[in-house]
């Protein structure tokens, strides 16, 4: 498995505030790499930089050999970003929203139709895709957005709190979908507060706090290293 994403010495400042202080990590092909940490640790900022939304103050980010600074458009062709509080256009029907998004990635109508079909399968919303997004529950919107994020089979899916606001059943379904797609070769960079989710999903984990990575490794490896029963305890130990 080759390296898909490489982040080196990433820094981001907002005026005098340094949000990210030199983060380095890499994500392999088909790997689920998770950033875990408290609020304000710099997880979302890191994901937003990789998603081409924010410009790094220093450091380099490369995706399949493409430098983010030099060719952000190449980046965008190969990534898919699901923000924590993402929404969809309320006046569009669910299926129309998927078509709209698919048209940015597809070269031909057939390809776009294939993307939409895949998104429909992922979202599992059935006939409700013919209704306007404004009538959807939060869980339905999240599933629609996950379908949108994975329908193009991006090289890297960036998922910020993918099960945010979902109930237990929907969360389980979403985790299964992410796991399945990673097995099919899609690399995933995700962040979450939910340690159980991280343990279930991720191949490797980075513990992040105050803009720095404290430690990283597999969930089991970190538990062994810190002799902790779960990742929450691992995090607490790493902070000391």
């Amino acid at each position: 498995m080759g390296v898909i994403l490489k982040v080196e010495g990433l820094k981001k400042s907002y005026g005098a505030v340094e949000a990210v202080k030199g983060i380095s990590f890499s994500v392999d092909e088909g790997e689920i790499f998770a950033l875990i940490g408290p609020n304000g640790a710099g997880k979302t900022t890191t994901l937003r930089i990789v998603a081409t939304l924010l410009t790094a103050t220093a450091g380099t980010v490369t995706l399949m050999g493409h430098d983010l600074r030099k060719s952000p458009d190449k980046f965008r062709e190969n990534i898919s970003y699901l923000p924590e509080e993402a929404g969809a256009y309320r006046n569009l029907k669910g299926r129309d929203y998927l078509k709209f998004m698919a048209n940015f990635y597809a070269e031909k109508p057939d390809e776009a139709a294939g993307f939409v079909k895949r998104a429909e399968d992922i979202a599992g919303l059935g006939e409700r895709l013919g209704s306007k997004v404004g009538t959807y529950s939060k869980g339905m919107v999240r599933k629609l957005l996950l379908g949108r994020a994975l329908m193009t089979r991006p090289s890297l899916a960036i998922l910020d709190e993918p099960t945010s606001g979902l109930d237990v059943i929907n969360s389980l379904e979403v985790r299964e979908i992410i796991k399945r797609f990673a097995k099919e070769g899609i690399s995933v960079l995700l962040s979450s507060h939910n340690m159980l989710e991280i343990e279930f999903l991720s191949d490797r984990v980075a513990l992040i706090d105050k803009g720095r990575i404290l430690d990283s490794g597999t969930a089991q490896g970190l538990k062994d290293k810190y002799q902790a029963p779960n990742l929450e305890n691992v995090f607490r130990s790493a902070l000391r």
Partner: protein
Amino acid sequence: MKKFRNLFFKEVKELLSKQLIVSLLLMMGMFYFIGQMTRKEAARAAAAQKISVFDLDKSALSAQLLTGLQTMNFKIEAVTAATAQAAVEAGRAGDTNLLVVIPEGFGESVRRMEPKVVETYSYLRNFSIIGARTSAIVKGFLEAINKVLSDDFLKARVPETTPEAIKSPIKSRDFIIIKSRMAEGSASAVTGFVTSQTVFIPVILMMIILYSSQMVISAIAMEKQNKTLETLLTVPIPRTSIVAAKMLASGFVGLLSAVIYMVGFRSYMSGFTGDMAQMPGVSQVVQKLGLTLNANALVILGASLFFAILCALAMATILGVLAEDFRSAQSLVMPMLILIMIPYFVSMFADVKTMSLPVKLFILAIPFSHPFLAMQNIYLENYRAVAFGVLYMAAFFGVMVYVAGRIFSTDKVLTMKLRWGKKKIVL
């Protein structure tokens, strides 16, 4: 291009919501309804109006007066009462709008050239402009009677000259000069005619600019409020295309809204202004002075309006980035409104050329001033001023698009907010 089209149609679809279409149609219907009502009222006022006349004289002259009123499309209702006061009281209870009291001895006094007072009582049952017309027409008629009587008197006493020469020893002929063109006519009548013909242009412009600006600010604000902007910014399409699609779609929907609005507004206004073709005399003077818009003038005017709209869209795009949600977007329309209202009123009530240099520069620095002034400048053959306006707006638009493009290409599109002295940071 395919991706741009995809984005453009999505924007139009989002903007053309059912709510917008219904509200526009309702507004147009409302204007049409009011216009029809006003037109009917005007037609009713123009039809035979009833006047109550209490004739205490019953002389040949008073009969002549009443005949004259009848020829002016008034329906005369003779009042029978014991006294003038009783006639006034009777009118109070009735539905007449005007009572004319011709005093006893009216005919004889006039014959002796001793002024006699004819009293008119206007019953103000409402304050509509149309309602006040009746008394104005009667006043005009009484003045005409006065003229005829005084002319007869002067003819009898001073037969060697005309009454007109005695009453108006100074005559005038009025000429209007515009640059190289000249015509005989009343300057105020021509100004009134031209104003009535062009009054819609600034209103149309104002509506288009306001609608389009509001659309584009709201479109960006809604992207933020609905949390769709971040996703959109990560799709493989140049940021400039995102900005351009939003501007173009907002401009299109804004134009559509303004046209619908103006169709209704024109219907509403025509109820007041009537058919201007009823002024052939003035119309000929206007033709002679070249105060009509030919094809070239329309193209120049169109260019001026077009660039003004582009400037508004570019400015609104930048303002839209500052909005956090739909509510804050509404308040961000205010700066645009101010920038439109200043030249709107200046063009209506003042002459920019006679203003002090700093004020003039300030007015001309506002891009929207130029289309407002373009109409006057075209009529006055100041084509250089119009061309300067178009070039200035093109340059202004270029700068604004560059700024908007820079904002959308950087973090600022997500981090810029209108919080004086504070900057919100998302970690």
